[in-house]
């Protein structure tokens, strides 16, 4: 069984490759390359897989999941400029892919418990762009 909890954070970022010039960055990233940055209302949906505990009837206590999301994602990322304030985005471009992968890394071990494990992180950067990270072969 899968259970999903949603959280939101608003943050600014810029997508630029430092060793490329403005024109080349614009070609690759479009307006997201604006050096001064821009922002999104990110939505993260975290899905945990497991069997409901026979006594509590829960796969995982959603209060715990809410707390973990708060500590690992919302508190460090909400109302921040990702490139300047949230490692590793001082050296990794905070594309939706890289932010989703970082959220997966932060949550994976914290969510894991007997009978439940992280199954999917879906990160919406906008209503029209989202990234899924799931367990499976291949690196993130």
């Amino acid at each position, binding site marked *: 069984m899968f259970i999903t909890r949603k959280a939101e954070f608003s943050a600014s970022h810029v997508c630029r*490759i430092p060793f490329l010039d403005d024109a080349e960055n614009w070609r690759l990233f479009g307006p997201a390359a604006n050096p001064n940055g821009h922002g999104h209302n990110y939505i993260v949906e975290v899905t945990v897989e497991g069997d409901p505990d026979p006594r509590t009837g829960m796969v995982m206590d959603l209060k715990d999941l809410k707390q973990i999301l708060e500590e690992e994602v919302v508190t460090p990322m909400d109302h921040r400029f990702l490139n300047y304030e949230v490692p590793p985005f001082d050296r990794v471009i905070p594309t939706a892919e890289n932010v989703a*992968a970082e959220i997966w890394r932060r949550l994976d071990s914290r969510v894991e418990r007997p009978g439940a494990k992280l199954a999917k992180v879906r990160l919406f950067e906008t209503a029209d*762009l*989202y990234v899924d990270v799931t367990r499976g072969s291949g690196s*993130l």
Partner: protein
Amino acid sequence: MMSVTRRYRFSASHRLHLRDLSEAENEQLYGKCNNPFGHGHDYVLDVTAQGTADPVTGQIAMRHELDRLVREQILHAFEHRNINLDVKQFENSVPTTENIVLVIADLLKEHWSAYISGPARLSRIHIQETDRNGFEVLIPSAQEEMEQKKDPELAEVHG
């Protein structure tokens, strides 16, 4: 495993009708969707690319490449069209959203490598016809296809 999904929208009209059935049979089969004048939807199209984030660009597939592929090969054909009359793939087939998803999947597969520069592959197409009706096809990877061939029962279930 990672994927990136880009969402697009197009508005189009269609009519569900089979020429070899009578008016009454069509009416019974398709109901309101058989209205002779057609009707329209605001379709929402999700195109998913699977792969790994490129170490330099941080992206599985470049947005501008995906956007140009979908704009030129899909939206140009479907946006503000009458699908029965304006889209050649539906000259002889009925534009249910099932069939629209399959036509779009074929077009994206055909043109993918001409537009998408990296190793990402097309893995999923989802169309929301209305808020209440969703349609999805998954495109198996080469490895998944091989596994299905080895296990025909699995192919039957997931095929």
